[in-house]
């Protein structure tokens, strides 16, 4: 339990990557995700990897954190790689093991897909690792701004996001606290028959729900008491601003895109 993360995935820091405007980061990563699918030569993959690894190094986020994002999907990556090895039957036969023939194209395509996965996860983790959830929410609200014209509740959506984000750590702390209290009263969450373990969840869930509802009520009341009335005419505490850093980031990214298209085969 104690190894669980406290505040989302964000790793505090003061690097250039941390300080780039979150809108710029989201925009650049969005386009990066698109152009990853354009790479088709060793050189072009090299260019993409250079960008992702370079940004990771500049961010000074410890390596294990970058790899954490890979944990839930490495199985998928491995699976697609092996699938390619088995299914693709183009090019020369490289080796044959127990009657299974592994083709050159299989290895190449498998490696390419895995590399794509890896790069995508690396850059998206880098976004959440270097940007606070609140910044991301603000940026999404701004980027979706135009949708307000068609009466899409952008502000409410952003508010819901930031409230949920705000309460994730609180709920996690609460869960830890209550499970400790119940463990002290003899509940065993770890061992025992499956049926008993399911039953052990009730003393944890009931207090959690009770407190979550209570918090929601308190929050609603506090917001009303302070005259909250939605996005109309509301100003922001943290104004997002585009600085020279952002311009530089866009230029570097434009360079990467150009290099990518030059190195495509």
């Amino acid at each position, binding site marked *: 339990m104690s190894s669980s993360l406290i505040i989302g995935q964000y790793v505090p820091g003061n690097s250039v990557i941390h300080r780039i405007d979150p809108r710029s980061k989201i925009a650049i990563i969005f386009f990066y995700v698109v152009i990853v699918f354009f790479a088709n030569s060793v050189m072009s993959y090299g260019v993409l990897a250079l960008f992702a690894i370079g940004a990771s190094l500049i961010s000074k986020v410890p390596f294990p954190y970058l790899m954490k994002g890979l944990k839930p999907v490495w199985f998928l990556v491995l699976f697609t790689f092996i699938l390619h090895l088995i299914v693709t039957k183009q090019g020369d036969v490289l080796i044959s093991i127990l009657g299974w023939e592994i083709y050159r194209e299989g290895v190449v395509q498998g490696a390419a897909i895995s590399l794509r996965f890896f790069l995508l996860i690396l850059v998206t983790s880098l976004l959440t690792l270097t940007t606070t959830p609140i910044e991301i929410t603000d940026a999404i609200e701004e980027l979706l701004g135009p949708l307000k014209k068609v009466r899409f509740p952008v502000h409410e959506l952003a508010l819901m996001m930031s409230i949920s984000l705000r309460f994730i750590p609180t709920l996690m702390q609460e869960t830890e606290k209550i499970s400790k209290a119940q463990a*002290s009263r003899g509940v065993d969450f770890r061992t025992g028959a499956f049926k008993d373990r399911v039953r052990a969840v009730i003393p944890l869930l009931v207090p959690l729900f009770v*407190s979550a509802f209570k918090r929601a009520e308190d929050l609603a009341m506090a917001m009303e008491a302070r005259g909250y009335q939605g996005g109309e005419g509301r100003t922001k505490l943290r104004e997002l601003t585009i600085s020279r850093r952002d311009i530089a980031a866009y230029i570097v990214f434009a360079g990467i895109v150009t290099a990518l298209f030059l190195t495509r085969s």
Partner: protein
Amino acid sequence: MDITFDQVSYIYQPNSPFEYRALKDLSFSIPSGSFVAVIGHTGSGKSTLIQHLNGLLKPTKGTVTLGEYQLKAKEKNKELRELREKVGVVFQYPEHQLFEETVAKDIAFGPRNFGVNEGEIDRRVNEAIQATHLDEELLERSPFDLSGGQMRRVAISGVLAMNPEVLVLDEPTAGLDPHGQKEIMEMFYDLHQKKKLTTVLVTHSMEDALAYADQVIILNKGEVYMQGSPLELFKKQKALEEVQLDVPEVIEFITKANEKLGADIEYTGQSIADLAKEMADFVRGGRDHE
């Protein structure tokens, strides 16, 4: 149950950027049957310390010994269950742990988990609500329909019903009205004496520490800053102020009075009435000499 901490350190989230050393080489011992107050600024590690008393946390380094149980880094304990039955913990805001349909069921939850038989459970539930001054009528009510103070008493009853040998209290009176605070502390002290419990009380109240504890442990930034009898410690006003702690009002008053009157009255735990008499005698005595 004798409790010993030997060079205990605890690190939250080790090997991560959030790594935090909450306890640093703590060593102290609590003899069986004593009443110990743990005092310290917010964040000094009090709650972390008490979670070592029933194996919720295990030391990152060092050893915690409770009676015949030993908690050590990287050692799996099989008898944690027995330990948890013997060490009752009342957490901060314990009313947050209530969940059953009725008060009676919630109080019975602990003993039932530890396999106590039904007749004995009934007896313990009744004994517990008597100790906490809960009305018998409330037993069949939902705990969520009660007042905050009543919920606190139900939660405390739930821990008492486990019949623990060691009672660990983490700021048990936080957020109660002054009258309720006094009543609950008196109740704990009463039980401590009647049942010969070993009691560990985390508190911000110097008054409570002075009134009930035989031994005080002052934590600062995860280290034992001072340790000793309350009368001894509370004389060291300078050292206490250094870690943002006040001395109890009585002692502060006597110090000030001594300065003003040029007296040297010493606080040895006497009652307010005795103290007043002592002071009056001094003042009168002073006049007689003139």
